[in-house]
């Protein structure tokens, strides 16, 4: 199992798509933090001055810039972007192994299919975390170094960051498991990309026209798609946190298990 993960990680770090998806947010994060820094110090001609502000997702206006706001703002909560990244990586990292026959080769060298599946899933999620995590991480770190924030290290702030990050990760992983299943069904990378985007479009349109039905809107509310951004709400009751955890874990288990069973029964071409 350790060897399999090592091998998958080796493949991941050498795949062009991953390198691209890693480099673009990395460089843009550096550029963004530099621009912000220079603007604040009036070195650049953007006169943001005292008017400089961000509007957070809750509608409140954040007057000042600190680590939390930076981190919160840069984490990808935007569902379409997240889905795009996930399906591109799934298409190139997982599907390609089906088309090139690498999975076939791994099976016939005596590796159990269960191990192959979990190794693949683990490294896929790891890759996604690296890709999506790099932007907020770099911006926050650069921000801390460049901005001279005043030490606002309240206990509650750390708690907030810790809680929302963990819950975010849980839902993030749950959504990844959905993509794992989709890829196991469709195999081909072109199909994976086109079908997911189409499905996403249809679901969004469908939801917009059906959200007046209470059942549908409740379902959406508790689904991982909503929860992933909901977890960044400033104050959550313990009940809401519990519901969020249950929603994430159930989604992950159901989709992973189905995908695994499917992979085990699969005729590998």
């Amino acid at each position, binding site marked *: 199992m350790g*060897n*399999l993960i*090592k*091998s998958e990680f*080796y*493949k991941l770090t*050498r*795949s*062009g798509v991953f390198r691209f998806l890693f480099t673009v947010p990395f460089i843009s994060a550096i550029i963004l933090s530099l621009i912000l820094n220079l603007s604040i110090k009036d070195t650049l001609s953007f006169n943001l001055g005292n008017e400089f502000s961000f509007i957070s997702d809750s509608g409140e206006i954040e007057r000042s810039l600190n680590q939390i706001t930076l981190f919160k703002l840069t984490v990808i909560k935007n569902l379409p972007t997240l889905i795009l990244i996930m399906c591109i990586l799934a298409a190139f990292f997982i599907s*390609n192994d089906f088309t*090139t*026959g*690498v999975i*076939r*080769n*791994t*099976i*016939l*060298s*005596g*590796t*159990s299919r269960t191990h192959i599946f979990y190794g693949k899933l683990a490294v896929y999620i790891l890759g996604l975390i690296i890709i999506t995590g790099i932007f907020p991480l770099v911006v926050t770190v650069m921000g801390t170094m460049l901005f001279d924030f005043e030490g606002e290290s309240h206990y509650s702030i750390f708690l907030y960051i810790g809680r929302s990050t963990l819950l975010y990760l849980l839902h993030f992983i749950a959504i990844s498991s959905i993509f794992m299943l989709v890829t196991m069904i469709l195999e081909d990378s072109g199909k994976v990309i086109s079908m997911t985007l189409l499905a996403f479009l249809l679901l969004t349109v469908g939801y917009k026209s059906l959200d007046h039905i209470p059942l549908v809107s409740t379902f959406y509310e508790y689904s991982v798609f909503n929860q992933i951004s909901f977890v960044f709400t400033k104050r959550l009751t313990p009940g809401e946190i519990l519901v969020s955890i249950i929603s994430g874990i159930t989604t992950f288990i159901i989709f992973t298990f189905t995908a695994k069973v499917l992979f085990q029964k699969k*005729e*590998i*071409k």
Partner: protein
Amino acid sequence: MSKNILRTINLYKKYSDDYVLNNINISIKEGDIYGLIGLNGAGKSSLIRLITGLTAPTNGSIELFDGKSQNLSIRKRMGAIVESPALIPSMTASENLEVHRLVKGIPGKESIKHKLSLVGLKDTKRKKVKQFSLGMKQRLGLALALLGDPELLILDEPTNGLDPVGVIEFRELIKKLNRERGITILISSHMLSELSQLANRFGILHKGRLVEEISIKELNEKCKQHLLIKVDNVNRAATILENELKTNEFEVKHDGTIKLYALLDEVRQVSQSLTNNGLIIEQMTPMGKDLESYFTSIVGSSNNG
């Protein structure tokens, strides 16, 4: 000594309602190069897919390495190229090998260099696999299959799409592996003649059935054209062949029959000389045909039957 490396027992495979494999019993012994021959669609690939564990048989069983163990790890002792070699096009040859080295847990990166030089690809350096020619890809596929030094190597139509020079090189490499490293090899092809210079045993598949299992020795006996002569006094017959018919191209077999490889067009003259010297001819039959017509005769006859 002659242990079974692979044995299939009453193997059946059904897709929807058709049996693509019908009661297949083959056995491959240690050190064999086993040629699996059949027209396209005869069931070669299906059989190989069953052997390599890519699909499960509908019925019957497969014993690997003398049937000692049935668990999955026994497949670590096999290497295979099924259909096309499984390569990652955006990687170099050694990166491709590294992926599989990690999967299999083979210690030491030296094994990669060693396999690359074995198949003659050590000078490809930073060249990506997508820039490789078909022959190079096949060779890299072989290097992948050889990683971990398998005891059984399975090759599914490995020379498909290779140029004639490539085919010869590939064949020599296979022979070398078998000779120098004692690897048992299962190789499939749709042409008997292609494997006749490589394999030492053949299984001929037709429409999902094993129609014949034959050794190269038996095959050559069947395919070498000769006149089979049986007379009452073999010693005299030998002197007559030498003196009157002026030929040395004959063999006296263990059972006292003579195989005459010359004078095939002059059967009448041969029989006359023998009878003139007072010999009684008990049998005189022309035997043997070329490989391809032998193959067609087998496949054809079972076609009608």
